[in-house]
Structures are given as C-alpha cells and as structure tokens.
C-alpha cells in the first residue's frame, strides 16, 4: 500500500512513475510483496517487475555471500579478532534488494549495519571490518563507490543524505541518494529534520528504514504509535511499506522510489518491514528482552530460504549452481578470515594524521612530543 502526497511536484523530465493508490485507511497496512514466504511469485499493481533468471540467481548469490560474510565476522568477533560486530542476519533481502536498485552514480549513506548494501556498491567487505577491529574509524574512501562511511550516531546521516541530494538538484544531475536507518532512528530529531528539508527542497533522496522491530531492547512501539511508513504523509511525500524479507519487493519499491527521485518528484520513505534475527551487536544479550518464539516466527520468513524455494520450484537453479555458490562462500569466508588476522595495528602516530586538511600547529607540536616520548623508551631499552 502506498500513501501518496498531495504535495508531489511535477516531474522535470515529464515522466511519471505511475499513479499511486490513495492513502491506506486505519489498521495494519498490507506489505508490498512479490514473493511469498513459500517462494511463490505474486503480482502487485504498482510494482510490477521483470527479472531474468540470471538476475534472480544474482540476488540469491548476493544474499548468500552477504550472510556468510556476516557470519564470519560474528565468528571473528567471538575469537577476539574484532572488538564488536553488528550483524545483519535476517536483513539481507532489504539490503540487497535496495542496494541493487541503485545506480553507480547514486550515493548511499549507511548506518553501521549495511554490509549487504556495501556489497552491492562494490566495497570490499574486508574494508568494513577495520573499524570493528579497532584499527580505524572508517576504512574506505566514500567516493570510490559512492558509499559513505558508516555512521554510528543514530540518524545523523539522514541529514547528510538530504544535503547531498539537494546538491544533486543544484547540479541538475539525475542521480539520487539513499539514506539508511533503523526504526529507532525515526525518533531522532535529525531524521525529522531530514524529512522536512527533503520535502521542502524536493530532494532526490530515498529514506530507507529497515524496521527490524527492535532498537537494542526497545520494540518499535516504544518509538511510534503509527506505522512508520505513514509518517511520510505528514511531511508531504509518499511512504511505502515493503516486505523487507522479500528481495524482489525491496528491489521494485526502491527502484520506483529512485525513479521518482530522478525525475524530480522528490523524496520517498520506504519502510522495509523485517527482523533482526540476531543480537543488536555482539555486546547485546537479547534473551533479556525478547522471546525465542518471535525469532522462530521470523525464521519461517527467512529472506534467503524464500528465494531459494522460488528458484527450486521454478527450476531456475540447479545443484551445480548451489554447490558452486557454497564453494564461493567458503572462499569468501576464508579470505575474510585471513585478511582480518593479517590486518596490522596502525602506526601509533596515526593518532595525529588527517585531523586537519591544512595542518595545525598544536597537532604538529604534540606529534613531535609524542615521537620524542616514544623514542625515550627505545633509548632506555638499548641501554
């Protein structure tokens, strides 16, 4: 179900992304779904999508490799190689579907959990691990893949995304921006302000909220009394709720939202209704606030299993495909493990690097003092 905005502007390019249905009434909305949990394709009037068998296998591969990468990172944390890990387990479809909807010249602003989106943007997954290992506070060049650094402060990046999108409009370009955040983040002032700016400046930005039901220990009900996707209406742009465990629906809905953005019709809020199957992070203990039965319910809706069922029932992938993918997963896991273990600690003087683009006298002075101080130990040892 979609909620259309009365404030939607006329498209610049004259293209209209298809008339949307009027606002949903009270009660729980339907999710946009194109693939049932049993793996059956279903149609949706607003979000028709053609995908080739090869594309389907590609989406499946993306999800499987992302999950394997994530599992490996969790293991590496348990083995003490990473200080922390924020797992995406259960959110693969939301991330791969939306990530694959982006174009190279689009720009993505993630939180700290968008490992699948990073994968779609071509970021080497091992680059994501540096900050979790504690060797850097970022780890990649955001402009290389138009994938911004992870943002830990909740909601901040929604404003950066909106500003970036405003810049795209000023440049007369037709690319778009996706801002990722969680359901908890929708309570932050920054997110509300991002909605306001995006609406007022008709910015080409898609707000992609993965409602994984929890903000650490707090369920979504502690953040909102209305379904989140309906918030958008009050700001004057459309809100859509999509089955976040359905990779096809996530792809279709994000594609349509990006198309709206590209054609001058402004922002869209997408609420991907999904579930965090694991802990919030490796530091969290979900048994204190959540029941196992809940996870079991969602396991039945597993995004990867769902596409696998579809591939199998339609005969779109054979044993050879699955076996090859398994081998590829193993190889990825091995590469990740080896790369992380070999990841050196930074030089201690890295503390003073890249603080200012133009330098700073105090930093120079402190660096010199630091080096001299460190050297004094070396002198001691050599005595």
């Amino acid at each position, binding site marked *: 179900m979609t909620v259309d905005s009365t404030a939607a502007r006329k498209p610049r390019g004259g293209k209209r992304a298809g008339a949307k249905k009027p606002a949903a009434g009270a009660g729980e909305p339907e999710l946009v779904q194109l693939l049932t949990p049993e793996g059956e394709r279903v149609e949706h009037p607003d979000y028709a999508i053609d995908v080739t068998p090869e594309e389907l296998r590609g989406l499946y591969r993306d999800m499987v490799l992302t999950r394997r990468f994530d599992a490996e990172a969790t293991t590496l944390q348990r083995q003490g190689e990473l*200080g*922390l890990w924020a797992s995406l387990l259960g959110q693969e479809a939301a991330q791969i579907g939306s990530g694959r909807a982006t174009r190279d010249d689009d720009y993505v602003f993630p939180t*700290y959990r968008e490992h699948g989106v990073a994968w779609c943007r071509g970021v080497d997954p091992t680059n994501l691990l*540096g*900050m*979790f*290992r*504690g*060797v*850097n*506070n970022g780890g990649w060049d955001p402009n290389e893949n138009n994938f911004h650094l992870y943002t*830990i*402060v*909740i*909601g901040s990046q929604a404003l950066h995304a909106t500003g970036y999108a405003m810049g795209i409009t000023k440049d007369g370009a037709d690319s778009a921006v996706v801002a990722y955040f969680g359901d*908890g*983040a929708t*309570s*932050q*002032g*920054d997110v509300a302000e991002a909605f306001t700016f995006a609406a007022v400046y008709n910015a080409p930005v898609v707000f992609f909220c993965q409602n994984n039901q929890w*903000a*650490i*220990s*707090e369920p979504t009900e*502690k*953040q909102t009394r209305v379904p989140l996707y309906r918030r958008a209406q009050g700001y004057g742009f459309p809100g859509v709720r999509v089955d976040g465990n359905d990779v096809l629906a996530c792809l279709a809905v994000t594609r349509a939202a990006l198309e709206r953005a590209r054609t001058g019709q402004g922002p869209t809020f997408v609420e991907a209704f999904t579930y965090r199957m694991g802990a919030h992070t490796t*530091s*969290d203990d979900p048994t*204190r*606030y959540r029941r196992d039965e809940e996870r079991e319910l969602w396991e039945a809706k597993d995004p990867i299993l769902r596409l696998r069922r579809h591939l199998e029932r339609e005969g779109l992938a054979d044993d050879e495909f699955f076996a090859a993918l398994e081998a590829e997963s193993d190889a990825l896991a091995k590469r990740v493990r080896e790369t992380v273990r070999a990841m050196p*600690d*930074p030089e*201690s003087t*890295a*503390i*003073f690097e890249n*603080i200012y683009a133009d330098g*700073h006298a*105090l*930093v120079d002075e*402190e660096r010199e003092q*630091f080096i001299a*101080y460190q050297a*004094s*130990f070396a002198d001691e040892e050599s005595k």
Partner: protein
Amino acid sequence: MATEKLSIVKAINASLRTALENDPKVIVMGEDVGKLGGVFRVTDGLQKDFGEDRVIDTPLAESGIVGTAIGLALRGYRPVVEIQFDGFVFPAYDQIVTQLAKMHARALGKIKMPVVVRIPYGGAIGAVEHHSESPESLFAHVAGLKIVSPANASDAYWMLQQAIQSDDPVIYFEPKRRYHDRSEVDTEAIPGPLHTARTVRQGTDLTLVAYGPMVKTCLEAAAAAAEEGRNLEVLDLRSISPIDFDAVQASVERTRRLVVVHEAPVFFGSGAEIAARITERCFYHLEAPVLRVGGYHAPYPPSRLEDEYLPGLDRVLDAVDRALAY
C-alpha cells in the same frame, strides 16, 4: 552497619533504588533502561520493581530525553536521565546548554531544575567511535551546570544521592572503565559535601590531581614513584564544576608541585583551568610550572591506539619527573 563491598555499577544501581524508594517524584529515564537494565546494567531490575511509570524506556532521542526531563522538572519531578554513551550526548547538548543550564537564571531563581544527566564516559574499553569520549570540559564551560565524577563505589552511591537531591542540574559522569571496580559503600554514612575534593594519598613531593577514571591511575603512579623514593600526594577532585580550588591550593602549598591528569584532551581542558587558577593562587609556592597530562588534540583514536592516546602510568610518571626536575 549497612556497609557492603560493591562495584560502581551496583552502587549506582543501589543509589537509584534508594532514590526511587525515598521520593515518589524521582523518575529514571533513558534508552534501554527498562527491561534490559541499560547497556551497562546500571538500572538492572529497577523497572521490574518500580514499574514503567517510574523507570521509563524512552524513544531513541537524546534531545527528547533531556527536553522532556526539563518539562517533568518544571512539573515537580526529579528526573535522572541516562545517556547511553558519552558520544551520544550531543543531540541533547542543545537542550542541556541552551535550556537546562539557563532556566533557573532566566526565571529569576523562581524555578528549579533538579535534573541529573548520567553519562558513562571515558575510554579504555576497546569500543568503536563515539563510545570513549571525555566531554566534561564542554559542559564545565557552561554556567548553570554542576559536574561531578565519582572514582569509587562509595562516591558513586553518595554523589548520586546528592545530585538527585540538588535543585540544580547535575551532569554525573560515570567512569565506565572503572564500572566493575569494587569498594566499600556505607549506605548509612553521613556523606561529606558534594563539591569537595578528597586527598586519597598523602605525600610531600608533588600533588597529582585527577578525577573519575584517572584517580586509580594516579594512585598506581604514586605507588610506582614511591618505589623510587618519591612521595606523591593524590587528590581526587570529585567535582569538576565547581572545583575545590582551596583543597588543591592547600596541597600545592605543601608539595609545591602540581600535575593535573585527565583523559580528555589537554587543549582547553579542565587541566588548563586548574593550572591557571593554581598559578594565580600559589605563584610564590610553586617550584615548577603546573603540568598537564591528558589526551591529544586529536579525535579519540580507534581502539587499537587508545593505550597510546590515554594517559597511563608512564606518562604520569614522565610528567612527575619533569616537574621534579625544575
């Protein structure tokens, strides 16, 4: 006797429990403080015993947490809010600085602002970005706020009691790396005043001033220096705003040398304020310039470098050597 050996976490928990029991106007609020008991378990069990009306899981919105606490205080409540980590106080910084701090003055003293903002702060826990900051100076610079930081379980218990009873806003910085250090807490004692410093080690050669997480480091440094025949005095400041300059002055007049130690960056830090005041007050007593040991003018580094960034035993002793060399 109600004396018990408690960790700082348990002492704060016990203190909140006492406050909730004693005063129906006390409210605990913050992210995950309910069922989870906070990410550090400081509020463990409180919601179970006092209900969701008194121990409130708030939406994920720090400006909202402090802003509504101000409103609750205006209505006669005494909110004790938890900011989950130091680096996440900044969405609330606006409310704290522009509203909470100034409300009493703007109302010509007619309204009170009994709000406590609890912030776990400081590094050395191997965390990711924004989880190891020491922003106390950013608050100390603001008139209208009081700032304290306990260094042991007894102070953790009593200073929180006193902060909650205070009609002024108090920022209560919890040294998270010391959360699990245990010491004696007498919950029936009569506590000393909230904003006085305490001599935690007597000495004659030099004064080390610290607060929160660095008190223990300074005690260790003093113990190490003692092996080299140096007798250091260690002062636990306890309160960062106001600062008990009289206590620092009295100590420096005896030892004639002062080293201030904190985790926060030295540049424009609390050490600068102490150095300036003590230089004014003790110019003719000082045998050496007041030295400061702290973080660099650099963002808090990734965890693999935090040991280099944070003042440890060696850096404190190095400053002691330099001060004694004058």
